[in-house]
Every structure is written in structure tokens, then in C-alpha cells.
């Protein structure tokens, strides 16, 4: 009893007798709710327009539910099949029944499309057989199906069906890194003439790194000039840097085509000066050079602006101090000035690199064969071939690599040191 009284008197209370802790928590909760309400619109916006679609899209890269859903009887019939010889009549009958039902519900086409990703020509096999088997009333279905399309007499077709009967697949990821399943279900390399994605990923990365490096080389002196010039000159220069931002991306890209093409402004000038002869005009666009030049130009402001904002904060007295302590101009610049701009270089690099890695329309227009990037293939599979599974797999690999690079960057440089302005 005495202890309890002691405890009670220990607790600090407000004027109305509620414990101070409770009262503070109540007041804080109101603030927290207010804060949550303020960020709620942005949070919900990001959730619905960004996170959910990305998760949904990523899921497509392993989703294979269409086969078990549309061909349930076939999947069940093939469960115990050993894959050595053609399956028994029950499997043929099950496939025929699934095809008839799939034709009724108009779902069979999805199966045809899905199987065609794995083996070219399966679309025609499935659609044609489904059409013909619809007229067959009774078995034996084995002969009827093989008669409808001889592919059903081929062991490889059935091995394919068994392999894709699970609701999940790694097939899209394999395809995205130039691998595939052989008929036995082992992973093997695609034949040489179908290997494209690994090379495109590598090219995307090294070109993005190169473009980032070029923007540092070109942007650093400009940013330095901007930060040190008197205000009225630097304002004018700033407008020149920002001007491209206010011009449409397509216009800027097309302008580069006009500049660089072999009958274009640059080549005409070089011929006129006499540097090159008229019939030996170099190809400067529709290849790597075109993509690198156009993208470096378009992404330059993303490097200049963070650099400028960092350089603006470096007092000129530091350089003078270094000089007065005996360093020459170069040493002072390398040892005193550059280290202070590292955060700006880091911020600019990460901006430019991440933008470059996903760039799409500029490479499509000026890239020709050697200057297009992985994003062009992703767009192709999203819009043209409708192979969203493969597009998702390519996208997830790209996203994963960027996140991995971000963590490496964070470990090496530290993301907290990054300054955007």
C-alpha cells in the first residue's frame, strides 16, 4: 500500500490529473496523424501508380498460370508420364477435351501464344488442331490428333507440354539471358543466331558508363565557369544550359540527325574545309556514335546542375589558402577543389547513369543497329510481340542491376554524401 502511494506520487501529472506521458502521447499522436494525412496523397499515389504496377509486372516474369488453367485435364494426365515415349491415349483424349473446351471459351489462343514462345510454330499447331479436333466426336484421339497435326506424334511436343505444366516458369528469365530448356528439360545456351539479350545488356551498361563519363568531362568546366563568373554572365550561361530542357526531346534528337547525317551540316562543313573528301563521308549517325553524341547532349544538364550547386558553396578562399601554403595551381585544384566537388559528381553521375540505362526513344531514332539499347527490346516485347513475360523478365533484370549498383555506390561513396542542390 505504501509502495503504491509512492509510485503514484512519482508519476508527473498535468493540471487535470492525467499522467504527463499520456497527455504528451495524445498531443503527439495528433501531430503524427496530421503528418501522415499530409503525406498520404503522395504515398497513395506512389503505391497505386508505381509500386503495385511494378510488383504486378514483375510477377508476370514467372507467371505460367495459363497452361494449368486452360489445359487442366492434360496437365493431370501428364503428371505420371515418364517422358520416354509418346504418352498414352488418355493424355491425347485429355488434350482433345481441353482443346474443345478452350475453343468454346476462346482461351486456347493464349495457350497457343504461350507455347509459341517456347517453340516456334506451336501457335499454328495448337490453333489448327483445335479447329480440326472440334469436329471429332469420339476416339481414339491419338490418331485424330496426329492426323490433325503431325507435331502431336513428335515426342518433343509432349515433353514441352509437360515442362510448362507448372503454374510458374523460369522460361522468361532463361530467354532474357540467352538460355533455354532443351527437350529433356536441361538448361542450355540458345543457338548462336538467337543470342541477343546478354550483348544488349552489356552494351547498355558500358554505353551508359561512357555517356556518364562524357557528361562529367564536358559538364565539369561549364559548371565551374557558371559558379565563378559574375552573376550577369553566369545567368546568361545558365539559360544556355537550361535551354535544351525547354525543347522537345524529339526535336533535339531530330536536330542531331540533321547535324550528323552523311549529307548533314557537319559532314558538309568538313568536306568544304577539305578535311574529308566528298565520297568518303564518315557515318556519324544511325550507329553508336549517334546514340552517344545525342544522349550526352540531352543528359548534360543533369550533370551540370548538381555540380553547379555544389561548386557554388565552395568558398574561393580555400583555393587561395592552398596557393598561399605553397601548392601550385594544379595541386591546389586536384587536392583541394576536386575533393570538395565529389558529392556533386556522385549525384550527377547517378542521375545521368540511371536515366541513360532506361533511355528509349533517342537510341531508337539515332541508334541504327549498333546504338540501340535493351530498353528498345523491352518496348518491342511490350508493344509489338505482346510477350509481356519476357519484357517483365528483362525489366526485372535491369531493375535488379540498377539496385545492386546503387548499393555498391552507397557502400563506396555513401548516399548521404550525395548533394542534388
Amino acid at each position: 500500500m505504501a509502495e503504491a502511494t509512492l509510485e503514484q506520487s512519482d508519476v508527473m501529472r498535468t493540471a487535470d490529473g492525467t499522467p504527463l506521458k499520456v497527455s504528451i502521447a495524445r498531443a503527439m499522436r495528433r501531430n503524427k496523424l496530421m503528418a501522415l494525412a499530409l503525406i498520404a496523397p503522395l504515398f497513395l499515389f506512389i503505391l497505386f501508380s508505381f509500386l503495385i504496377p511494378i510488383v504486378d509486372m514483375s510477377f508476370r516474369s514467372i507467371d505460367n498460370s495459363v497452361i494449368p488453367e486452360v489445359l487442366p485435364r492434360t496437365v493431370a494426365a501428364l503428371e505420371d508420364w515418364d517422358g520416354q515415349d509418346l504418352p498414352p491415349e488418355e493424355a491425347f483424349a485429355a488434350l482433345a477435351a481441353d482443346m474443345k473446351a478452350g475453343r468454346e471459351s476462346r482461351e486456347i489462343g493464349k495457350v497457343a501464344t504461350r507455347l509459341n514462345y517456347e517453340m516456334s510454330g506451336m501457335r499454328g499447331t495448337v490453333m489448327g488442331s483445335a479447329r480440326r479436333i472440334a469436329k471429332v466426336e469420339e476416339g481414339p484421339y491419338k490418331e485424330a490428333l496426329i492426323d490433325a497435326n503431325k507435331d502431336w506424334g513428335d515426342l518433343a511436343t509432349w515433353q514441352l507440354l509437360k515442362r510448362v505444366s507448372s503454374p510458374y516458369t523460369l522460361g522468361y528469365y532463361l530467354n532474357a539471358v540467352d538460355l533455354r530448356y532443351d527437350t529433356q528439360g536441361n538448361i542450355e545456351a540458345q543457338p548462336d543466331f538467337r543470342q541477343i539479350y546478354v550483348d544488349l545488356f552489356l552494351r547498355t551498361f558500358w554505353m551508359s558508363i561512357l555517356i556518364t563519363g562524357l557528361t562529367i568531362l564536358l559538364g565539369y568546366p561549364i559548371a565551374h565557369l557558371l559558379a565563378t563568373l559574375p552573376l550577369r554572365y553566369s545567368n546568361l550561361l545558365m539559360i544556355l544550359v537550361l535551354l535544351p530542357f525547354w525543347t522537345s526531346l524529339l526535336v533535339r534528337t531530330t536536330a542531331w540527325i540533321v547535324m550528323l547525317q552523311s549529307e548533314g551540316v557537319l559532314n558538309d562543313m568538313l568536306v568544304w574545309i577539305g578535311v574529308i573528301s566528298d565520297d568518303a563521308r564518315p557515318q556519324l549517325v544511325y550507329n553508336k556514335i549517334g546514340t552517344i553524341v545525342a544522349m550526352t547532349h540531352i543528359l548534360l544538364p543533369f550533370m551540370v546542375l548538381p555540380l553547379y550547386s555544389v561548386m557554388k558553396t565552395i568558398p574561393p578562399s580555400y583555393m587561395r589558402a592552398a596557393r598561399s601554403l605553397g601548392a601550385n595551381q594544379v595541386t591546389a585544384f586536384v587536392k583541394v577543389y576536386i575533393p570538395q566537388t565529389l558529392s556533386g559528381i556522385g549525384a550527377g553521375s547517378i542521375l545521368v547513369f540511371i536515366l541513360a540505362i532506361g533511355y528509349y526513344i533517342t537510341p531508337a531514332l539515332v541508334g541504327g543497329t549498333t546504338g540501340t539499347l535493351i530498353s528498345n527490346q523491352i518496348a518491342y516485347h511490350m508493344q509489338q510481340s505482346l510477350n509481356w513475360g519476357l519484357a517483365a523478365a528483362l525489366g526485372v533484370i535491369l531493375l535488379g542491376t540498377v539496385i545492386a549498383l546503387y548499393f555498391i555506390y552507397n557502400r563506396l561513396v555513401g548516399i548521404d554524401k550525395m548533394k542534388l542542390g
Partner: protein
Amino acid sequence: MKKTLRYTTVSLAGAVALTFAASAQAVELNVVSWGGAYTASQLKAYHQPYMEANPGVTLNSLDYSGGLAEVRAQSEAGNVTWDLVDVVVADAIRGCDEGLFMEIDHDAMLAAAPDGSPASKDFLEGTLSDCFIPQIIYSTAFAYRTDAFKGDQPKTMADVFNLEKFPGKRTLQRAPINNLEWALIADGVDASEVYDVLDTPEGVQRAFDKLDTIKDEVIWWTEGAVPAQLLADGEVVFGTGYNGRLFSAIEEEKQPLAIIWDGQVLDIDGWAIPSGGQNKDEVLKFVKYATDTQRLADQAKYISYGPARNSSLPLVGKHAELGIDMGPHMPTKYADQGFLTDFQWWADNRDELNERFEAWLQQ
């Protein structure tokens, strides 16, 4: 005061009644097409006369850049807002397989020819497919600069592949479709046998080998406006393009270009109706009107694409603005020099050949 109030009530009730009546009648249809000169020709030939004849129907014309991504997204979200889409036949087949488009009973849903023959007989042979309502025949053909060569001018597909006789850069579409066919034709395969040859691995290899001979001289285009531009700038001496765009470069912009009809690939463009839309009956009414004999012939007044009906061909007249007789500019007039693309074959083989083509480009 009382009187005013009563008037107000009456007029309010009247307004409400009118609104209800109007909303019961008014239908808005979202019709999606390619934009530019093509949509303009459709507006003049189909949309405007239809809306004048049916005041209750509003046709909203929307643009897209092809492909089925949007249609599939709408279908999966269960909210189909596009009532009618203008598609190339390859996409119509792909979408039909996936159940994205409504199946069409051509004879029951489309207008018969003026002489009474049913739609399935009147549309050009081989153009109909399950979910697809043909509209125009366009072709992809080569054009060349008439000022590029002295003496003999190129006339055949073999000439296009002949770098010795006709040197200079070419521009081709960055896709295997058409290019493989042309390579085989230039290599001496008859147009009627192209797909039989392509159906064998050796045939595909033969096509790629032939393409290898001009590879170094090719600029590959992906956007449809590019080839005409490259030809106009003198960047290339040969270029493939859609005949409608080539027509406007030659006749409207007076570029020194000529079309090589030999080996032209005919392709079909038309309507498909996304399944799951709210206005099926109204859409079908519009489609029946827009694909009748006279309407298809009318469209050729505004753009040089051939109508997909046999009965429309004799009705094709002069260009509405240029006053040129459009008959000689219809790709269908030169049909015997080209061939109809085998869209079923491409639907089966496109994915694999696209990868192979891209890999070949990188070599």
C-alpha cells in the same frame, strides 16, 4: 411570385426530362486509329457523314501508335473503353487468338455489295479472318531517287540488291518481315513460292545470306516517317516505305522519287472490335456503314490506299485536293507484281525470326 416559381419548376422538370431523353439516345463511341493523314482520310470518308446521318452518335477519334498493349491492358483491367480499333491484320490475328477481339460473322454483320453478293465474296480473297474487318490494302514497296542513276533505272527486286549496278545506301525496316521475302525474290525465288521456301531452315538461311550482301549499305529504320525523309535528304538512294507515304512524298512534296512496284508486299489494315465493350450494337452499325462499297471507295479520295472490296475498285475517283486520278496509285492495281503477306506464317514464326534478325544485325 407564385407564378414565377411554378414556371421555374415546370421548366426545370422539362430540362431534366430533356436531359434524360438525350442521354438515352446519345451514344459516344471511341474509335482509335493511327492518326495523321490516315485518320484524316477516315474522318472525311466515314466519321463525318455518319455523324451527320445519325445525330445521336458521337464518334471520338483517338490516336495510337499500333500494337495491342493498350487493348490487352484494358481487357485485363476489365474496363474496355475503346469501342473500335484500327489494326494491321497481324495484330488482329494475335488479338483474336487471345480473345481480345470480338469474332465477326462477316456476311451477317457487314454490308453486301451493290450487286447483292455477300461480304465474304466481295472482300478481296484472303483478306478476311475471324475477328478482322478489312478496310484498305496498303503495300510496302521500294522507292528510289530518280536522280541517282544515269542510264538504266532500277526496275526489279534484283536491282535493289545489285550494289554494282546501283551503288549507294539503302534504307530498310528493322524487322525480318518483308526483308526475308524480298531477299529470296532477289535471289530468284518466285513470289508465289516465297513462304514455302521460308518454311525450311535452309530457306531462312538463304534469305539471310542474300541480305548479307547488302548489309553494309543499309540504314535500318523503325519509325514510318524516316524512310521518306532519308530519301528526300539524299541520304539513301533506295528505301522501303508504305505506299501512302511514298505517294505524298512524290505527288504532294514533288520529291524526285519513283516506286518500284515489283515485289511489293501487300498488307491489310482494318477494324477490330475489342470484346467486352459497352456499345457493341452501335459499333456494329457504324462498322457496317464505314466498310460498305461506297465508303471504302470514298476513302481513296484522300489517301492512296486501295479499298479492300472488289466492288469499290471501279468507284475510285480523283484525289479530293490534288485532282489526280487515284486509280494508278492504288497498290492493288499492281497486285500481280507483288504478293500478299502470309500473316498466319508470320504469326507462327515472328518471335523466333525477330531474335534471329536482331542477332544477325549485331554480327
